[in-house]
C-alpha cells in the first residue's frame, strides 16, 4: 500500500490557497443534511464542532469529562505562537514554518507545517474577537514573549493560563452553537469504537459513563480530537483521564498509527516525590526565559546538597555548572525541549542531581530577581511560583526551583493526509491525536496553535470536500455493522468485569509506565527496547488474567473506565517499542543511544529514515505492518540541528 499525503503540487506558499479553491463545496442549503461527529472537546474538538455548526452542519460533540470546558487543553500554560511579527523582530510565516520543521528535526511534512504557520495569524484574530484576554502592553496592543527554541518573540499569552483562556474561548463558541441547536452535547460519554461500513467511517459506539448504556451514533464523518497518549507512561503531565482509547480503537478498525515512538519529554516539571505520585506537574517553559538551569559542578557538592548538609544558596558561583549556557552559548537556557531534557538527564546520571532521589536540577531566578526586581518576576510568573510552592512547600523566590523532565506531549498519532483524514475515509484526526505537524519534536507554544488551526481553519474546508461527494441522505443506523460493533463493545466490557483477579488497575498501569519510562523514555537502546517488548507482553497477559474490576457496567464505574483505557495502553505500548526499535537513528524526542554524534547530540539518518512510519493493525496478537511515507523536502535543506 502506498500512502498518499495528498500534498498539493506547486510552490509552498500557494499550496493551501490552491487546495482550498480546488476543494468541493457543500451547497449552503444542503449543509443541514449532513451529520458530523466530533469526539473530544479540547482546542481541536471544540473549535471544529463550533466552526462546523456555524457553517450549518449538524454536530454531535462527545467528551468523557462532565463538561467540555474540562478538556486537558485547559492546562496549557505558556502560550500560542503566531507569525504576526507585531514585534518587528524579523518574524514571518516562512520563519515560523522553518523553525517548526527544524525544531521537529525534519520529520514533518513541509506542506502541512507551512499551512500551520500560514493560518496561525488568523487564530489570534479569532480568539481576540471571542474575548480572550491576552496579555497587553500599556499602549493597549498585544504583548509577546519568546519561547523555547525561537529567536523571535511570537508567543501570545494570557498570564500562565493561555490554554485555559483559549479553550474557554472555543468552549464559548461551542456553547453558542449548543444554544442554537446545531450542536448536541454528550458529556460523560466515552467513545468505544468506530463503525466502518464499506470502508468508510459512518458512526461511533459510545458508553454513557453514568448509566453504562452502550449506544450507537451515525454520521457522515467522524472527527477524533481526542488528544495524546502520554499517559501510557502512567506518570505524565496529562490529565488523569487522558487516554488513547478512541484513537486506538480507530487504529484497530483500519486507521494507521504514525510515529508512535515520538514522545516529548518536557524539561521543566516538578520532580517525583514518592510511590503514591499520580501525576506530574509542569512548570511552564516560559520560566526558562528568566530562570537559569544549573547543578553543582562536582558530585561531592551535589552529595552534600542531597544529604541536606548545605543549601542551594550556599553554593558559590564558581561551583555552579550552568550546563545549558555552557554547552549551547547561543540558545542557552532556551534550547528546544528534547535537548534541555536530555542534558538534565546526563548531569543527573553523572551524580550531580540535586534532590533526595538525585533526579532534579535547579531552575534559579536569583539573577533575574536581582536584575528586574521581584515585582516584575511576580507579574510574569506569579501563579507558577504559587503553584510550585503549593506542591513542594518551598518558596521559589527564596530558593531555586527543582525541576526534572516528564512526559508531556506525543507527536505521534493517527496518520492523516493533508486533509486531516486518516486511512479510513470519513474518519479524521485533529490536534494532538494526529501525527502531522511536529515531526519528532514539538516546539513550545505550538500545540495550542495546531489544535486551533485544525479546528477553526483546516477542517471546515477539508471535511466539506469529502461531504460534497456523499449523497445528502441520512446514514442508516439500522445497518447491521452498528449492531455488530455495539455487541463487540459490550462483550469487551463483559470480559473485563469477569476477570475478577487480585490486583487493582493502577497496579498494571504503574508497571507499564515504569517499563516505558525506563526503556522507551528519554534514551533508548536496542537491548532495552527488546526487553521492554517482552515485559509488556508478559504484563498484558497478567492484566487479562489478574486485574480486579469491581461493580457492574450499569452504573458510574470509574474502575471499569480505567481498566478499559489501560487495556489499550498495553497494546499501544508494544507498538511504541516496535516503532522505536525500527527507527535506527536519533531524531528529536527519539534518542537511540547507539546513534549519537561524538559530542552526544542526536544523530539523524536522513538517507534511511526520512520517512513517516505508519503502522497497520493486522489482528489480535499479530505484529503490525510498517508502511512508509517518504518525506520530501523541496524547500528546506536538512542540516544537523545546532543550538550551540
Amino acid at each position: 500500500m502506498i500512502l498518499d499525503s495528498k500534498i498539493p503540487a506547486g510552490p509552498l506558499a500557494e499550496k493551501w490557497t490552491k487546495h482550498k479553491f480546488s476543494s468541493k463545496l457543500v451547497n449552503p442549503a444542503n449543509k443541514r443534511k449532513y451529520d458530523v461527529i466530533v469526539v473530544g472537546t479540547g482546542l481541536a474538538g471544540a473549535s471544529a464542532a463550533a466552526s462546523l455548526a456555524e457553517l450549518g452542519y449538524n454536530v454531535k460533540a462527545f467528551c468523557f469529562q462532565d463538561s467540555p470546558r474540562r478538556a486537558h487543553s485547559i492546562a496549557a500554560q505558556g502560550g500560542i505562537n503566531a507569525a504576526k511579527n507585531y514585534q518587528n523582530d524579523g518574524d514571518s510565516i516562512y520563519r515560523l514554518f522553518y523553525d517548526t520543521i527544524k525544531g521537529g528535526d525534519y520529520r514533518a511534512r513541509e506542506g502541512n507545517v507551512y499551512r500551520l504557520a500560514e493560518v496561525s495569524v488568523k487564530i489570534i484574530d479569532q480568539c481576540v474577537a471571542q474575548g480572550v484576554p491576552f496579555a497587553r502592553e500599556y499602549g493597549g496592543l498585544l504583548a509577546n514573549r519568546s519561547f523555547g527554541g525561537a529567536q523571535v518573540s511570537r508567543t501570545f499569552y494570557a498570564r500562565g493560563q493561555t490554554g485555559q483562556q483559549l479553550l474557554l474561548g472555543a468552549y464559548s463558541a461551542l456553547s453558542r452553537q449548543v444554544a442554537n441547536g446545531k450542536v448536541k452535547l454528550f458529556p460523560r460519554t466515552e467513545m468505544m469504537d468506530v463503525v466502518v461500513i464499506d470502508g468508510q467511517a459512518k458512526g461511533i459506539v459510545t458508553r454513557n459513563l453514568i448509566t453504562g448504556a452502550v449506544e450507537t451514533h451515525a454520521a457522515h464523518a467522524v472527527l477524533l480530537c481526542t488528544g495524546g497518549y502520554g499517559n501510557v507512561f502512567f506518570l505524565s503531565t496529562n490529565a488523569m483521564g487522558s487516554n488513547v482509547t478512541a484513537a486506538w480503537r480507530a487504529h484497530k478498525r483500519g486507521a494507521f498509527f504514525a510515529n508512535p515512538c515520538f514522545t516529548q519529554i518536557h524539561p521543566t516539571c516538578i520532580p517525583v516525590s514518592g510511590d503514591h505520585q499520580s501525576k506530574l506537574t509542569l512548570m511552564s517553559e516560559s520560566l526558562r526565559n528568566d530562570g537559569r538551569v544549573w547543578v553543582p559542578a562536582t558530585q561531592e557538592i551535589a552529595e552534600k546538597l542531597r544529604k541536606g548538609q548545605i543549601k542551594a544558596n550556599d553554593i558559590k558561583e564558581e561551583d555552579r555548572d550552568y550546563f545549558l549556557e555552557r554547552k549551547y552559548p547561543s540558545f542557552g537556557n532556551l534550547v528546544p525541549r528534547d535537548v534541555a531534557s536530555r542534558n538534565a538527564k546526563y548531569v543527573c546520571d553523572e551524580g550531580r542531581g540535586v534532590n533526595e532521589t538525585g533526579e532534579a536540577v535547579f531552575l534559579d531566578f536569583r539573577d533575574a530577581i536581582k536584575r528586574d526586581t521581584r515585582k516584575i518576576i511576580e507579574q510574569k510568573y506569579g501563579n507558577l511560583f504559587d503553584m510550585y510552592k503549593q506542591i513542594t512547600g518551598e518558596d521559589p523566590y527564596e530558593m531555586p526551583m527543582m525541576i526534572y523532565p516528564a512526559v508531556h506531549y506525543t507527536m505521534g498519532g493517527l496518520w492523516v493526509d493533508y486533509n486531516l483524514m486518516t486511512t479510513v475515509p470519513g474518519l479524521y484526526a485533529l490536534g494532538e491525536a494526529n501525527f502531522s505537524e511536529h515531526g519528532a519534536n514539538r516546539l513550545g507554544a505550538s500545540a495550542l496553535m495546531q489544535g486551533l488551526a485544525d479546528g477553526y481553519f483546516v477542517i471546515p474546508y477539508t471535511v466539506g470536500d469529502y461531504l460534497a461527494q456523499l449523497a445528502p441522505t441520512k446514514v442508516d443506523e439500522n445497518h447491521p455493522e452498528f449492531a455488530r460493533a455495539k455487541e463487540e463493545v459490550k462483550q469487551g466490557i463483559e470480559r473485563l468485569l469477569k476477570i475478577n483477579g487480585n490486583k487493582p488497575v493502577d497496579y498494571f498501569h504503574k508497571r507499564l509506565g515504569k517499563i516505558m519510562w525506563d526503556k522507551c523514555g528519554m534514551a533508548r537502546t536496542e537491548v532495552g527496547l527488546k526487553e521492554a517488548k517482552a515485559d509488556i507482553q508478559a504484563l498484558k497477559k497478567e492484566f487479562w488474567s489478574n486485574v480486579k474490576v469491581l461493580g457492574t457496567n450499569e452504573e458510574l464505574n470509574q474502575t471499569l473506565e480505567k481498566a478499559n483505557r489501560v487495556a489499550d495502553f498495553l497494546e499501544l505500548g508494544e507498538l511504541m517499542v516496535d516503532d522505536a526499535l525500527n527507527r535506527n537513528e536519533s531524531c528529536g524526542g527519539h534518542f537511540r543511544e547507539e546513534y549519537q554524534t561524538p559530542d552526544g547530540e542526536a544523530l539523524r539518518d536522513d538517507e534511511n529514515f526520512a520517512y513517516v512510519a505508519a503502522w497497520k493493525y493486522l489482528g489480535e496478537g499479530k505484529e503490525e505492518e510498517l508502511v512508509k511515507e517518504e518525506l520530501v523536502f523541496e524547500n528546506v535543506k536538512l542540516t544537523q540541528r545546532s543550538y550551540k
Partner: protein
Amino acid sequence: MKLTLKIWRQKNAADKGGFATYVADHVSKDMSFLEMLDVLNDQLTEKGEDPVHFDHDCREGICGMCSLYINGKPHGPQQTTTCQLHMRSFSDGETITIEPWRAKAFPVVKDLVVNRSAFDRIIQAGGYVSVNTGGVPDANEIPIPKTVADLAMDAAQCIGCGACVAACKNASAMLFTSAKVSQLALLPQGQVERKTRAEKMVAQMDAEGFGACTNTGACEAECPKGISITNIARMNREYFSAVASSDNM
C-alpha cells in the same frame, strides 16, 4: 500519618446515602489529598469493596473537575482546588469529613460526584461573543488598555468548579455567572451583546434553581482562583441597567 475518614457514600442519584468511616494509615505529608484517596481506593478494591467515586482530571488546579467538601469547606482548608491540597495541611490522628457539593442545582450522581451541567447551560444562555469563525478584524485593531485587559483576565480565570455555590448558604451561582458577565462587559468585543447577555445569563441562573445572593462573601473567600465579589456588584449593575433599558426580553 494515620487519619480517620468520614466519607459520604451514595450509590446513585436515587439512593439516600450516608457516611461511612475508613482508616487511612501510612499517609505521607507529600501526598496530595486525591492521592491519599487513590491509595484508599486501591485498598478498598483489594478488599472487594466499591471504591469511593470522586471527580478529578487535570490535578493541576485548572480544569475545575475536582470538588469535595472537606471538613465543612469546599476544596478544604486552603484557598486552592482539592487536587492542589496536600496532606501536610492536616495532622496525624485527625478525622476528616468528606462530602459532595451540596446544592439543589448540583444533584449527586454517586458518592462525591455531582452533576454541574447547570453551569454549562448558564454559559449557553449568553456567555460568549457571537462571532463566527473567520471574518474578524486584526487582533491589534482595537487597542485595549492594559488595566482593562487585566481586570477581564482576573474574571476570566474562573475554572467553573462550583466551590462558590457549595460555599454559599443559598447555593447561589452569582460569582460564577458574574465572572463571565464581567469579563465580556469589560472588553470592547463584548459590548454589542452586553445587555442581552446579562439578562439571559441571570435568567438561566435563576431557572436552574440556584439561590439568591445575600452578600455574605463566602464565595469569594472559598474561590480557589480568587475571583472577587466586585464581579457580582458589576453584574448587578449590568443586569439592572439592561432590564431598565433593554428591549431584548
